[in-house]
């Protein structure tokens, strides 16, 4: 009996090991190791022609926060500005996509089942179509001779083309546009699960619409809001495609800095240090949202 049990156990272990081996090896080598190497490179000195010198150098981080090389340097806030700007753009993207999606999620949840499915399909469809193509569309619309300016000048609202392309506004608009499906779906599932009886009770007991919204609806949908916010914030903060295509010098984000360090400036350790900053922001957001979810669960 005992012998058979042990044999069963070892055979189970064998199956388990076989099932887990691919993911462990693959992610260990091609996910964890690269992250460790980024961390390592971020404290090495830059090589003359790209690459690294294998000697300890901690001013890569100093440079991001304003002191490029030792204490005698003058405070140079350009990189810090770009970092803060990236956080600001990502936060704005979260807020705007939330304001856009929340009413629509509400509207869709009140439709008849068939129409509801159709509009849910419409929300998810852009996810299947190419990201570059969707951003390119905004390039066509926003540029000085583009559709928006032609239309506005045609009806006589403006006489000079508006400068929208290559501004921070264009970057935030582009990010909102590509992030909308990611904000919508968690919001929708939260709104769809609303307990309608509670809303009716609140109204019956004399609360007005605004009170009902802030005291009953908002708290119930908060998990969906938080989920959507995290899912939108994380890819926005490190984004470099949107600012590359739609933002000019004033729309530069930390992702563009990273790309420059690796592909044109060839300062790999500085690029690695910048990536470590992006990574820590992401982990911080993830951990705090997990902590909040756990607290809410208890």
């Amino acid at each position, binding site marked *: 009996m005992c012998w058979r049990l042990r044999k069963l156990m070892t055979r189970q272990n064998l199956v388990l090991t076989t*099932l887990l081996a691919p993911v462990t090896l693959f992610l260990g080598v091609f*996910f964890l190791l690269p992250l460790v190497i*980024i961390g390592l490179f971020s404290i090495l000195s830059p090589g003359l022609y790209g690459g690294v010198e294998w000697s300890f150098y901690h001013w890569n981080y100093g440079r991001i926060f304003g002191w490029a090389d030792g204490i005698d340097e003058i405070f140079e806030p350009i990189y810090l500005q770009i970092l803060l700007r990236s956080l600001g753009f990502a936060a704005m993207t979260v807020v705007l996509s939330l304001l856009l999606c929340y009413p629509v999620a509400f509207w869709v949840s009140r439709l008849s089942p068939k129409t509801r499915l159709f509009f849910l399909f419409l929300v998810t469809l852009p996810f299947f179509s*190419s*990201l*570059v193509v969707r951003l390119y569309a905004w390039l*066509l619309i926003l540029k000085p001779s583009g559709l928006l300016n*032609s239309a506005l000048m045609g009806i006589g609202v403006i006489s000079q083309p508006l400068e929208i392309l290559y501004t921070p506004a264009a970057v935030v608009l582009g990010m909102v546009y590509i992030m909308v499906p990611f904000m919508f779906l968690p919001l929708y599932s939260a709104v769809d699960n609303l307990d309608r009886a509670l809303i009716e009770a609140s109204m019956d007991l004399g609360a007005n619409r605004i009170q009902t919204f802030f005291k009953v609806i908002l708290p119930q949908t908060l998990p969906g809001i938080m989920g959507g916010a995290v899912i939108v914030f994380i890819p926005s903060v490190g984004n470099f495609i949107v600012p590359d295509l739609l933002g000019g010098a004033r729309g530069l984000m930390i992702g563009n800095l990273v790309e420059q360090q690796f592909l044109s400036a060839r300062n790999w350790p500085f690029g690695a240090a910048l990536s470590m900053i992006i990574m820590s922001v992401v982990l911080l957001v993830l951990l705090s949202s997990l902590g909040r979810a756990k607290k809410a669960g208890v």
Partner: protein
Amino acid sequence: MRNPIGWASLTLFSLGFFAFIYAPLFVIIGYSFNSNPVNMMVWDHFTLDWYRGLFGLAREQLSGSVMPASGYVESTGHMLAALRNSLMVASITTVISTVIGTATAIALSRFRFRLKGFYSGFLMLPMMMPDIVLGIGLLIFFVTIGMQLSMLTIIIGHCTFLSSYVFIIVQARMAGLDPALEEASADLGASEWLTLRKVLLPQLAPGILGGALLAFVISMDDLVITYFVAGTDNTTLPVYIFGMIRRGVKPEINAIATLIILASVVIAAAGLWLRARKTD
């Protein structure tokens, strides 16, 4: 909703929202048929020239054309090569990440072991990690170990995060299955492998198919990771289009973009149809 005016304004806002999502795509489609090569935002007349040029068909020299016909033919070759690369990368990536993701989902749903909590948390990380961090991490890694950037490095890059996507989808399907069937199979003397092959996998098939489809679509569209680990000789379609847009807006991009939009609509509709048929 009790207030009709409130409902009407909410409806108006929502329809505006969907217009915001779809108008840009229709702008591209519209202008891909515009014959004005100088300023494509000014409508001239209907043309299929940009599509003809795309497929390298002999193209009558239009007066006022900004580019000789040979220029289009050359870029057609590059574009088709990029499309071929994309399809190859996406196909191989789909197979590898589906195998890894499915095996992991089975292990985490059907076995109890000490590191289970760690694994299910860890598998979220490749999805949540910004792609630029993953991309440059892999770039430094490949350069450090002296591995030539190639199609292989692109495939590896895609598999690191797509395995997690497949894992999530298959695990969701797993959660809806009845373990009694597997227990019955084991009680009747089938080995673990036999149970896996004959009982579990057939039931999982829709989830696996869904995960594979998602992996294929995301791999086809991946730009950032590919951009960093592709090296100079291997371009995929998104990277090729990205480069084209960076070099300047040209009317052929509208035609390519329209074809991509159409392809994605077809894929999404097919996915939806498959799902609808499954529930019947």
